[in-house]
């Protein structure tokens, strides 16, 4: 309704034509609840312009959903049995990134501390990057889009290498964890501090490279970090869903047990 407040009566009245006369009559009869709006050039009426877009996308989506639901049934496996543990046991797919992380480090770090830090960090973005630069433009600028591409490639390579290497060293932080363990260090050192350092290192290298190559603004650096998070989330999810078989061993997708969805 705020828009209505902007229109002030008494401005530029033209001689009263029929439409206006009707409108005035309705006003007198007490039926006018909102005043007609004068559209600026870059504005459209929500009815019909926006409402039509909403209705059409709702219908298209609903049809797609119904077709999908007719074709593909939701899975229903055997009755729950606490005495028969399936191998592998997997969380829902959107948590398989955490389960993948869990293989490589302490459970509390992977399952609680890292996701909490990630969420708090994401929520804090608007209080760190306050400049109005790039609002409304996908990726802020040509440089921003290049940073997105660079970060995506970097993260895919680093993630894949790290997962495969760690797997090759029996998930002992590339063997470094095994060394510390054998040296009699407590779990907090090789299970928590070492993995944290490795993660921070990977992030640090990314930031240094972006800084060196692109000389980014604060907004563009945050784009690099956010992109790194998103790609990591997707990569770990793909590893967890499609490349982990019995005993959570790395397997090709076509070797996975069929009962998991």
């Amino acid at each position, binding site marked *: 309704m705020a828009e209505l407040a902007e229109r002030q009566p008494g401005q530029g009245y033209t001689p009263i034509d029929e439409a206006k006369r009707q409108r005035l009559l309705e006003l007198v009869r007490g039926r006018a609840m909102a005043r007609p709006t004068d559209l600026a050039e870059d504005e459209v009426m929500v009815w019909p312009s926006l409402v039509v877009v909403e209705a059409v996308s709702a219908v298209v989506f609903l049809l797609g959903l119904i077709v999908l639901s007719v074709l593909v049934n939701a899975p229903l496996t*055997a009755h*729950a049995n606490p005495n028969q543990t399936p191998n592998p046991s997997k969380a829902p797919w959107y948590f398989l990134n955490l389960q993948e992380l869990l293989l490589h480090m302490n459970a509390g770090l992977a399952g609680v501390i890292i996701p909490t830090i990630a969420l708090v960090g994401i929520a804090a973005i*608007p209080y760190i990057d306050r400049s109005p630069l790039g609002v409304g433009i996908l990726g802020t600028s040509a440089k921003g889009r290049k940073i997105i591409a660079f970060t995506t490639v970097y993260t895919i390579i680093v993630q894949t290498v790290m997962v495969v290497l760690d797997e090759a060293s029996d998930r002992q932080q590339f063997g470094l964890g095994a060394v510390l363990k054998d040296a009699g260090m407590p779990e907090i050192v090789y299970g928590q501090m070492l993995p944290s350092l490795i993660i921070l290192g990977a992030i640090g290298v990314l930031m240094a490279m972006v800084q060196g190559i692109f000389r980014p603004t604060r907004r563009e650096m945050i784009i690099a970090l956010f992109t790194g998070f998103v790609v990591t989330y997707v990569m770990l999810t793909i590893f967890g869903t499609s490349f982990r078989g019995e005993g959570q061993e790395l397997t090709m997708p076509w070797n996975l047990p069929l009962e998991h969805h």
Partner: protein
Amino acid sequence: MRREQTLADRITGSAVWRSVVRHGYPDTQRNQALIIASNVFLHIHPVKIKRYATKVTYTFCLGGLSFFMFLVLVMTGVLLMFYYVPSTDLAYQSMQDIEASVTFGQLMRNMHRWSAQGMVIAVFLHMGRVFYTGSYKPPREFNWVIGVLLLVTTFLLSFTGYLLPWDQLSFWAVTVGTAIGGAAPLLGQYVNFLLVGDYQIGQNTLVRWYTLHVIFLPLIAAFLMAVHFWRIRKDGGISGPL
């Protein structure tokens, strides 16, 4: 000049009709404004909007689709509730009945399942779209925070629903999931006991997760969405190039 009264005119001119609907046919700008401003559900919109905000390739309708999927989930969810009993003895059998005996039961279940998955994806992509267009910047900072909370709520809604079929898939997925939550430093065992309601996953867990899934988390989501949508309006609609 009086034109002849058609039946439609007589209906829309009657006292009953006019006590319900307070605008004419929306073919004039005035009535197009009134239909938005005089309807409690449509009034979430402003009556006019910047042209770029209707561009599908800017928003990809992701926020709207997330909300629409939430509505689909509420409707199919309520229908499923009429046949589902959250008891360890009856839950699995309810699922089989829904699939085999209830008219359109399998379709309802599939729609509920696939929209739940779709909503997780749509909300995540929506966050991406908002981030990459810089739409979190002042004055929209706090609405971004609300959005992050909505993402978390969406995850929790999906996860709590995962247990309900009470099959091997759901039982062990939740076993793994709660083990992750139970690994939290210091509070782990309390979190775990709060989530499971017992020393192992059983009847207490099922009714807790059912309640979280069908009413507690939906209420939180509805509350957050109310604030989310309200703030979009108050912040001048969706973002656009300056």
